[in-house]
């Protein structure tokens, strides 16, 4: 039997060189992209950067946010209700009263003068029949969104939220952020290297919904909600809403809450915003200046021109920031005061520039790992891996002597292939991934043990040593495939289940096991052939 060693050696070397090259190349790439990399990286810098580290090792923030799509639906319903009212006014149709809209839709309360047939015609022409469904129940009609339209709006708002968050994160200058839609209404945000959760959450989570709204003539401000209600005789009219703000003492700068009665329809919203920048208020405190686009300026100019002497509320995220008296026609710019620190003002301009989120968001899950804990984990993980590997190596050499050395070489190659493959596919190394790495070594050795035990049995059974090796490899192969399939199968479920760090573990395990089929079966067999040459007659095998 002729043994073709040439191509087998070539293939092994090619994979080895490929792995090292892939790792080296990835290290260089990572250094090139890193803004904090030293100007002339040394070899050890490159080695340290070959693997992308997970948030748990390098530090960073992991957030899962939920978009409250109900907000977007409510806005949509409110817009439709306003539109219907406008149309009714134009055509002189009496439609009764419209209470504030909810996420489910809005209702129309017919009064005595309302003619149902006219109202029906109006609804048909003013509202899209594909989007809205009208349910006539006597004197109260329910207008609600149809399911496809509702789903489209929900989908739209989550997509818009992803886009907005991306803009804001980009403005923060985070390298390699992950911003992903996770399910219908969840968004995953991962920011490696950022370790300031409060600041990040403030920037990402602020809705940034700016509106400039007229304060009603009797709209206050009042010191309490009761006082405001009293001024209106118990209930505020439907076209008004109560919004909280604050009053600031110019001397002591102590804030007290106040309440405004604001017109429900905003004069101008953040959609008409062109730019925002940090400016100063009259106390020389940091404030945010904003500039409107042409459409916004036209609207704003009209409203301010018609309402000189009245108050205009600047509302941010449903809170009145200030409500100055309109002294004259203003067109394109304004200022938001609010006793900001320079950092807060800077953050707010960033939020306003990136556009408002379509809906409020809540944080469902937050994980922050500081850089020092990650550093500690790496040290401990590497130590455990090295010690674990050495223990396995020593045990193998003691137990199998020369064949044990063969296994050690195969395991070392396995480790190199694993690192190279992970660098090549740019997989993320996590702390459980380090555990996966060292477990892989423990499991990969199983293939070697299976083969070696088989060889011993064959030789014990009377086979010639050289033949025993070949038969041992051949017979153990089926079992090796079986054991690998089961473990990889479990790892696949693990991948499906896990969040970031656990996914990293699954990936490391699978790659390591695949590499071990190659090293234990192919490389190890080759090593036997290399050691004992191509002679068929070998006296004894050290195993």
């Amino acid at each position: 039997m002729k043994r073709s060693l040439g191509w087998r050696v070539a293939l092994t070397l090619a994979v080895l060189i490929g792995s090292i090259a892939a790792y080296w190349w990835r290290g260089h790439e990572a250094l090139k992209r890193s803004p904090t990399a030293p100007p002339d990286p040394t070899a050890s810098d490159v080695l340290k950067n070959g693997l992308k580290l997970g948030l748990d090792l390098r530090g960073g923030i992991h957030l899962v946010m939920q978009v409250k799509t109900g907000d977007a639906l409510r806005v949509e319903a409110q817009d439709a209700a306003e539109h219907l009212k406008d149309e009714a006014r134009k055509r002189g149709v009496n439609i009764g009263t419209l209470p504030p809209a909810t996420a489910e839709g809005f209702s129309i309360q017919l009064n005595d003068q309302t003619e149902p047939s006219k109202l029906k015609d109006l609804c048909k022409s003013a509202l899209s029949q594909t989007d809205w469904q009208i349910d006539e129940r006597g004197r109260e009609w329910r207008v609600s969104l149809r399911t496809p339209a509702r789903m489209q709006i929900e989908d739209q708002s989550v997509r818009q939220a992803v886009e907005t968050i991306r803009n804001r994160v980009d403005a923060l200058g985070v390298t390699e952020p992950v911003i992903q839609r996770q399910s219908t209404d969840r968004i995953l945000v991962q920011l490696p290297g950022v370790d300031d959760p409060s600041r990040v959450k403030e920037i990402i989570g602020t809705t940034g919904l700016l509106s400039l709204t007229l304060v009603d003539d009797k709209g206050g401000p009042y010191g309490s909600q009761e006082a405001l209600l009293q001024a209106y005789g118990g209930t505020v009219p439907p076209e008004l809403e109560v919004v909280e703000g604050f009053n600031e003492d110019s001397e002591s700068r102590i804030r007290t809450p106040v309440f405004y009665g604001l017109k429900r329809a905003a004069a101008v919203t953040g959609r008409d915003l062109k730019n925002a920048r940090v400016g100063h208020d009259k106390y020389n405190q940091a404030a945010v200046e904003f500039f409107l686009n042409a459409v916004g300026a036209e609207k704003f100019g009209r409203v301010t021109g018609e309402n000189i002497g009245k108050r205009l509320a600047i509302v941010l995220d449903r809170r009145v920031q200030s409500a100055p008296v309109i002294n004259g026609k203003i067109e394109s710019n304004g200022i938001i005061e609010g006793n900001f620190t320079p950092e807060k003002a800077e953050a707010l301009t960033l939020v306003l520039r990136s556009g408002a989120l379509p809906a409020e968001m809540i944080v469902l899950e937050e994980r922050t790992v500081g850089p020092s804990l990650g550093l500690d984990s790496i040290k401990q993980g590497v130590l455990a891996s090295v010690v674990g590997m050495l223990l396995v190596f020593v045990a193998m050499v003691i137990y199998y002597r020369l064949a044990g050395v063969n296994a050690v070489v195969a395991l070392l190659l396995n480790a190199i292939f694993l690192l190279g493959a992970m660098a090549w596919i740019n997989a993320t190394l996590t702390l459980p991934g380090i555990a996966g790495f060292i477990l892989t070594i423990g499991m990969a050795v199983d293939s070697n043990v299976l083969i070696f035990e088989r060889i011993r049995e064959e030789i014990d059974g009377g086979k010639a040593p050289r033949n025993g090796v070949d038969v041992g490899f051949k017979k153990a192969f089926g079992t090796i495939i079986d054991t690998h399939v089961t473990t990889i199968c479990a790892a696949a479920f693990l991948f499906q289940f896990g969040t970031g760090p656990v996914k990293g573990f699954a990936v490391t395990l699978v790659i390591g096991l695949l590499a071990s089929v190659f090293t234990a079966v192919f490389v190890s067999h080759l090593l036997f052939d290399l050691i004992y040459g191509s002679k068929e007659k070998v006296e004894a095998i050290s195993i």
Partner: protein
Amino acid sequence: MRIFHQPKFDFLSVKWYCITGSIVVTAIGMLSLVYKGGPNFGVDFTGGAQLIYGFSSQPDENQIRKVVETAQVKVDSVQRFDRADKNQVLLRVPMEKKEGRDLSKEVTAALTKAFFPQATAGAFDLNLNGTDALQAKLVADDPEKLAAKPNSDPKADYGRLAQSIIDARSRQGLFKTVDAAAKVPGVAPVTGAWLKEKTVAGPFTLLSAENVGPQVGKDLREKGAWAVILSWAAMLTYIGIRFRSASFGTAAVVALVHDTLFTLGLCSILNTEISLTVVAAFLTLIGYSVNDTVVVYDRIRENMQKSRRDPLTSVVNRSINETLSRTILTSGLTFLVCIALFFLGGEVLRGFSFVMMIGIIVGTYSSIFIAAPLVIVWEEWRAKKSAQNSPAAPAAKGKAPAKAR
């Protein structure tokens, strides 16, 4: 060197003792689980918050608890984390009914007020702020007057500087004084002076913060349970197909379920916390413990083909003996690796390596004493049943099943 030289143990003679013993121990574990109202789930699954702080000197757990509770934050437990000389404290906060409360901010503020009273409100604490916040402050104040210099990029330069300062902090644990930060290589004297004037170094740092809402916790619990159950089913299917025998597949999965429940029960008795990584260990364990079983089964199949006339009992017994060295050696080596991980891998991986260690022992035991004997029990039962149904047929008791190749 050899552990066993052609061993001839009669494993099957003790099968009923082992099966009974396993049932009893697993039942005790399950009772403990029921008694304690389910597994001791960590914050990943229950929801709630877990904060780890590093202090510059010996922290006082009781005082920390009092301080945090005064700040209207409920506290489940305050305990030392990792080695005692690291001065780290793990704080657990039960789940909030409403999602979205910024607990780490509130707790940090409370701790600052109590342990660092000399800090003025709004002072920039080098131990509590990260790279990006420090960079933003440097850019805003511009102590090196980079903005005025031509060809300079203040944002990038200050970014590198902030990074090296925070890296130094990571290596030192935390800055004991601002001087330590000013002495970091690369910090210019002007910047050092700026640090001393504009920043402070508090007595603690937030190492990690996890805050999991009730929804995510529930999702993860369900996903974890499904992953375990589905991987059981996958193993059943694979072994069933590979060995073309319901008895092999079922026996392997019974052994597998036994391993999982046994380990889970033991975790419950020992109060091991079930975190995400521990569930990862369970799933790995499922793959691993089937390994041993498959190796034994492979050998049984091979020996059945070789010696068709031998009774099944002796074939199984011989197969276990032939693979015994391999089973002990592999499990021993993997166990060794897990020991290294347990003692050296750090606090986060301790639960993981503990479950792996238990799992390896149980998995090895079950593939020898449960999975293989169960095949015999099944086949004997089937033979008895078919003998009852058709008394004319020759007793197939103990014979290798014809279905398995």
